[in-house]
Every structure is written in C-alpha cells, then in structure tokens.
C-alpha cells in the first residue's frame, strides 16, 4: 500500500525538486544547469568512471552506481533526490529497460539510456520504453553538457499535457495554475459539460491544496495561451468506447478521432490522450504488481474488446475495498486520464452538467451526507456544493439505513450514489487476489479494466424511457469466495426521477434458489436495493468509514435508473437485509466484490452513469461473463450459477446517446 501511496507523492516531489523557477526556464539561477543531480548506472566500471568525470566537468552533481538494483533502491530511498537518470542498457542484474520502466512509473524522472549498441532497433527499443534520449557509447562530453534539456523538456511537456489531457501529477502540481486560468477554458471541447459546478468544486479543492503545494505557484503563461482540450468525463467516455471498438492494440489516434467525431478535437489531442491512457494502463499494471505481486502479464495484456468483467478492475476495487489500495491512489490513477485533481474522494462527476440537469428535474435526491451519516459511517465526502444541488433530502432514508446492520451492507448516498463497501478482513482481499491470480489464466476474465466501457452515456430523458425490467444479473459465487467472508450484495437504486425503473431485482429463484433478493421497484420513489449475503457471514460488508476509504460507487445516480444495474447475488441472501428502501437514487450496484472499484474513473468521475455495469467478474466457477445487452427493455437474464454481468456494448450506448 505504501508504495502506491507514494506514487503521486513521489512524482510530486521529483517534479518540484529542481524548483519551479528553474524548470520554468525563467529565473534560472546563473549556475544552471550546474548542480543538476544525475544518477549514472552502468555495470562497466570503466565507463562509469569516465562518465562520472565528464558529468563533473559539466558541474553536475553525480552519483554513480554499478548495479541497476542498487540504483533502484537508491532512487526509492532518495525520492526527489535526482533530476535525471543515465542508465546503461545491458546490465547483468537488471535490464536497463526494466529499470527505465520502474523509474518511469515510480519516479517519473527523465531517463537517458546509453549503450554501445547503436542499431536502430536498439535505439527504438529504448525510445519505446520511454527513454528521453539514447546515447551511443562512447559517450562524449558534448552530449552530456546538454542533458539538462531533458529535465526542462519533461517539465514543459508535463505542463502541456495538463492542457490537453492532464494527469494527476500535473494537476496536482499545477493545480493552482489551472484554477487561475480557468477563465480561459475557451477552447474546451465540451465546455458545456464542464459546468460551473465543476469549476467551483475545483476551486474549492484548489484552495485546499494550495497550502500543500506551496511550490506550485509557477504560472506558465505560454501554457495558458494554447488551445486546450479538457477531457471531460463524457469526452473520455467517448474516447474509451472508441478505443473499445477498435481494440486497444489497434486503436490509433486517427481512427479514434473518427469514431469520436467530436468537432474541434484534433488528432494530436487524441494522440496525447491515448498516450496517457496507455501509460495509465501500464501504470495500473505496475501498481498491481507492487501491490499484490500480481504478475505483470495479468495486467498488461489488455484485450481490445474486453469483456465486462475484468479481473483487473476487480483487483483494484478489491484492494480499495480492503483498504490496501488507498482510494486516493486509485482515484488518482483513474483521474489521471481525466485530468482531474483527486485530492479527496469528491466525485467530480457529480457536478457534470448532466447531473445538474438531473437534479433540476427531479430533485429528490438525498444529500450525500445523510446516508452515510445515518449509518454512522460516512462514505465519501462530497463537496458541499454538490449536496446543495440536490436539495431535497429524502426523509426516511436515514432510518432505512439505520435499519441495516451497520456492517452488513452499506449503501449510499443518493446524490452521489455512493456505495461503500468495506471488507473488514484483509484476508478477504487476499482471497480475491488469489482468485484473480488463478483466474488469470482464463482469458475472458483476466483483462479488462481499462477498457471498461465506462460509457454509458444516457441523457436523462432517455433514461426515463428506459425500462429496466428485471435485470437481474446473477452472479454465481465463486468457490473461492465461498469462505464465509464473502458477501455479495447488490444494490439497485433508482432515482426517483425515473419511475420506469423499477427493477432491480435479483433473481434468485433462478439462482440456485438460494436467496431471494429484494427487488424493489418503486418508481419514482425509492431505489431498491437488494442484497444477498451469504448466510454465514453477515458482517462482511460494511460501509467504510471515511478513513478506510473503501468504496465507491456510482455517482451518477440520476442515470442509474436507466441502467439496469446488475446485481450480484452470491448465493444466498440474508434475510435481514432484505429490503431497504434506500434513498432514491442510487443505483448501484453490486458486484460483490468489485464494487469498490467502480469508483474512480467510472463512477467517480463520470457524470453520467457509466457504470461499468458489468464488471464483475468474479465467478469462480465458470469464469464466464455474460454479456447482456440492453435493448431498452428489461431483460431478464438469469443465468443460474453463472455470474451475469450486464454489459452495455459501446455501440449500444452510443445509440442510446444518439437518441
């Protein structure tokens, strides 16, 4: 956990290490680039000695290291202690590319590769791995004199990226700057989507973070003048669905652009976002690796058209749920793509215009605070403004909550649709991890997270029309989970706005007869939640306290209705839980374990309900995901014993949208 947590932090410190003014190119000290802190890694001591002397001649501060592993631990120990890394490619203990990868993921430092192998293929490989330069040995001092440019360039590029797509680190780093030039979001492609709510929320956050980021004051004037594309959630969803259609491996900026068909968006914007996206996927895999020792392959292979249940997503969620993976880290990862600051777990998505609309229409939302509070365990904090928007708290909600056993199932707040689940026992997570590992082998379930179709973009109106009938998605319980600790729950909630929604049911008759779930369909009124928990343990899920940060969930409650959420029921239900009328909105979901995961990008960030609805993949037995496509009505799909996941194919979604 700690490693992950460090991620953003380390980047931050690294980035700032050289001092903003220097990186800015303005106000450079007279000595610049003297004092640049360079770490040189080469197993060849002769080369190392020569390089050291050369770099000294350049007045850099040199640290040498003849083992890649040593270099890595040095870098980890002294985060922010170096400005640039020069590494040999071939080293006995660790391939230079591997080191490069680690450095890129953990420290985000510019890395210069060097080798006496000057073949194009070798150089290309270095570049592909993210080297900012490739020096052919013997290295000449003239080349080294110039390496400071990579430090500066990286800084500037990061600044640029912020304009285009933004990444967590940069956003964090330049939070303030962004806030300052919010006014010129002029060319934002989807300005409409970025409602004032978002802005104000961001400001609020900015204000909060300002104290922490004292150094971030550098406003880069050149940056604010360039046209900027704000990758709003919607835009990102379109992007993701385009990528899904094409397949991650085949997705090239041009095709994506065509599919997205967004006026004003350029190939470059898409290319840059795609790059970020890939990086993000890669980073996810890195995180997974660090976290659970999950094999890289597990994460790194992204199937283009991944099925809804992604193990990967699953992991993260699971981790998040158990508290192993700090939500912030997860959120940060996800947010990276959207370029939104993730200081806390406030859901930016909530403020999207869509939500706004929704709230205007049927303000029967319960302020977020209520639900969690009622339970005594606030899930997430929502920024005040959000809650204000949903002006009508639903009464009775609290009581409903109280009725629930505190640690059994937690549900959420209507407005944000937050469901928090927390697994008390860490072993649960372990199991999940194990399971995941086991399941890696199964192609279907193993990858996906990334491309998770997070894109359900359904305009509110449309959603009303939608009927969600029974959308039960049965989830079978996987044997792995069978231990008492596992609980499956599914909550379905509908927003009051959407009367049609009434479904939520989980079926259970079909499901091995085990437990019936309660589906409520209370049109317009309350959301339904159904949860089934295994009899053995009632206590498994609970709403995470803020501290645990576990969970999350769907935020865009307004849409929830439109989307039939899949509910997962693991085997049996607990009688105690049965119906809880929760607040009205929420809709969300359960996938037993995966729930937590939804948060970040998808849920958190998306204003619309993108649910990844079907992601669950945990099925132990069959590993199969069932895809259900929504055809506007309900489907009843019940597969017994098989985890069903509802999945909205991107195309479907798109069609819905177009309506």
């Amino acid at each position, binding site marked *: 956990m700690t490693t992950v947590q460090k991620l953003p932090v380390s980047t931050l410190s690294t980035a700032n290490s050289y001092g903003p003014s220097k990186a800015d190119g303005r106000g450079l000290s007279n000595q610049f680039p003297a004092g640049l802190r360079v770490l040189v890694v080469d197993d060849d001591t002769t080369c190392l000695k*020569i390089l050291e002397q050369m770099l000294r001649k350049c007045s850099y501060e040199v640290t040498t290291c003849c083992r890649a592993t040593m270099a890595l631990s040095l870098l980890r120990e002294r985060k922010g202690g170096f400005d640039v890394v020069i590494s040999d490619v*071939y080293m006995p203990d660790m391939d230079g590319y591997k080191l490069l990868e680690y450095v890129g993921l953990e420290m985000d430092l510019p890395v210069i590769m060097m080798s006496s192998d000057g073949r194009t293929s070798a150089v290309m490989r270095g570049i592909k791995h993210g080297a900012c330069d490739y020096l052919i040995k013997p290295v000449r001092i003239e080349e080294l004199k110039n390496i400071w440019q990579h430090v500066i360039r990286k800084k500037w590029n990061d600044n640029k990226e912020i304009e285009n797509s933004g990444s967590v680190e940069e956003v964090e780093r330049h939070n303030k700057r962004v806030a300052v030039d919010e006014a010129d979001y002029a060319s934002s492609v989807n300005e409409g989507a970025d409602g004032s709510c978002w802005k104000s929320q961001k400001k609020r956050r900015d204000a909060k973070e300002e104290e922490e980021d004292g150094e971030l004051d550098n406003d880069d004037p050149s940056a604010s003048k360039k046209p900027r594309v704000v990758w709003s959630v919607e835009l990102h969803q379109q992007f993701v669905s385009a990528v899904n259609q094409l397949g991650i491996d085949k997705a090239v900026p041009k095709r994506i652009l065509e599919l997205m068909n967004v006026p004003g968006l350029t190939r470059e914007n898409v290319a840059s976002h795609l790059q970020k996206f890939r990086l993000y996927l890669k980073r996810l895999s890195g995180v997974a690796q660090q976290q659970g020792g999950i094999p890289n392959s597990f994460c790194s292979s992204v199937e283009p058209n991944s099925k809804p249940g992604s193990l990967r997503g699953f992991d993260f969620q699971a981790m998040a749920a158990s508290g192993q993976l700090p939500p912030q880290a997860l959120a940060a990862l996800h947010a990276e793509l959207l370029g939104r600051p993730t200081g806390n777990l406030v859901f930016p998505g909530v403020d999207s215009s869509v939500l706004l609309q929704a709230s205007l229409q049927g303000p029967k939302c319960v302020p977020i605070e209520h639900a969690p509070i009622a339970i005594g365990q606030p899930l997430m904090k929502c920024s005040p403004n959000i809650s204000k928007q949903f002006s009508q708290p639903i009464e009775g909600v609290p009581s409903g909550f109280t009725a629930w056993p505190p640690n059994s199932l937690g549900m959420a707040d209507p407005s944000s649709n937050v469901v928090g689940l927390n697994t008390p026992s860490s072993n649960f997570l372990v199991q999940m991890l194990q399971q995941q590992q086991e399941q890696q082998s199964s192609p279907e379930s193993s990858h996906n997270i990334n491309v998770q179709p997070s894109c359900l973009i359904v305009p509110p109106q449309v959603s009303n029309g939608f009927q969600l009938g029974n959308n039960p998605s049965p989830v079978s319980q996987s044997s792995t989970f069978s231990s008492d600790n596992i609980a499956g729950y599914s909550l379905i909630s509908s927003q009051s706005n959407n009367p049609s929604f009434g479904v939520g049911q989980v079926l259970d008759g079909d499901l091995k007869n085990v437990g019936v779930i309660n589906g409520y369909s209370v049109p317009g009124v309350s959301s339904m939640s159904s949860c089934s928990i295994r009899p053995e343990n009632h206590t498994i899920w609970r709403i995470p306290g803020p501290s645990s940060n576990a969970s999350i969930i769907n935020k865009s409650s307004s849409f929830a209705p439109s989307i039939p959420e899949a509910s997962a029921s693991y085997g049996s239900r607990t009688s105690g839980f049965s119906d809880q009328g929760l607040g009205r909105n929420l809709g969300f979901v359960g996938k037993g374990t995966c729930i937590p995961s939804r948060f970040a990008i998808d849920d958190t960030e998306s204003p619309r309900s993108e649910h990844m609805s079907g992601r669950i993949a945990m099925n132990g037995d069959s590993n199969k995901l069932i895809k259900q496509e929504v055809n506007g009505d309900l489907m009843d799909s019940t597969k017994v014993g098989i985890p069903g996941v509802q999945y909205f194919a991107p195309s479907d979604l798109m069609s819905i949208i177009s309506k």
Partner: protein
Amino acid sequence: MDVNQLQRRWFDLTASLFREGFLDDQYTQLQQLQDESNPDFVFEVVSLFFDDSERLLNDLATALDQPVVDFRKVDAHVHQFKGSSSSIGAQRVKNVCIAFRNYCEENNREGCWRCLQQVKHEYALVKSKLESLFRLEQEIVAAGGSVPMME
C-alpha cells in the same frame, strides 16, 4: 634525458598510437577530462580498463570453451568489452569486438574463437603501448616536467 626530449618522445608515441589506429578521439577526450582535481584520471581509467578486460577475456575463453557454447553469454561479454574499449578509445580492440559480435549472432564458434585470439592480441598490443606511454609520462613528471596536452 631531459624533459624536452622526453616530451618529444611522448608526442611521437602518442601520434603513432593515433596514426596506427590503436587509439581514437575518445582517448583525447579522456586526456581533456584530466585536471588538477583528478591528475591521474587517464591512468586510473585505463587501469580499470585493463582489469576489466582481463576478466572479460578470461570469461570469454571460458565461455567459448564449453561443450555447448552459450552465444548469448559470449555476446554479452563481447558487448561489454566493446563498450569499455570504445570508452577509452581503444579503437582496434573495439573494431575486433564488432566483428566478434557478428560471429556471435551467427553462432559461429570458429569465428568467435578466431576473434577471441585477435582481440587478445589487440588488447595486448594496446596495453603495452599505453603502458609505455604512462611510463614516459612518469619519467616526464619525475624529471620535473609536465605531460603535454594533445591538441
């Protein structure tokens, strides 16, 4: 022998090393890197190179002597040898290393073996030349002179 004479001999020897391709520009770079703060820099680096080279040559001989040659391993050694020889400007050694690597790629044991002999030979040559150069420099210093700088 007076300082001037020693210095002239130093110039001649250095010039011949360059002319005959034993050394290249990289060696000049090393000389330029040497300064007051690091007066023995060239000597130290070259000594390191000698140590490394002898180890590498041994490893190469061992690797090529196996019943089943692991050419990737051989190649890795040669690669490193190439890197270090080029770093000090031992051009002829480096050139043999390039040929050597080609044979490695072809898994050509014969070729590799020949290259090993060649590289040993070149290494021995450049080593003895450099050693005489260093001796000369020591004599110059001992005679109260300073080692001239190459242009």
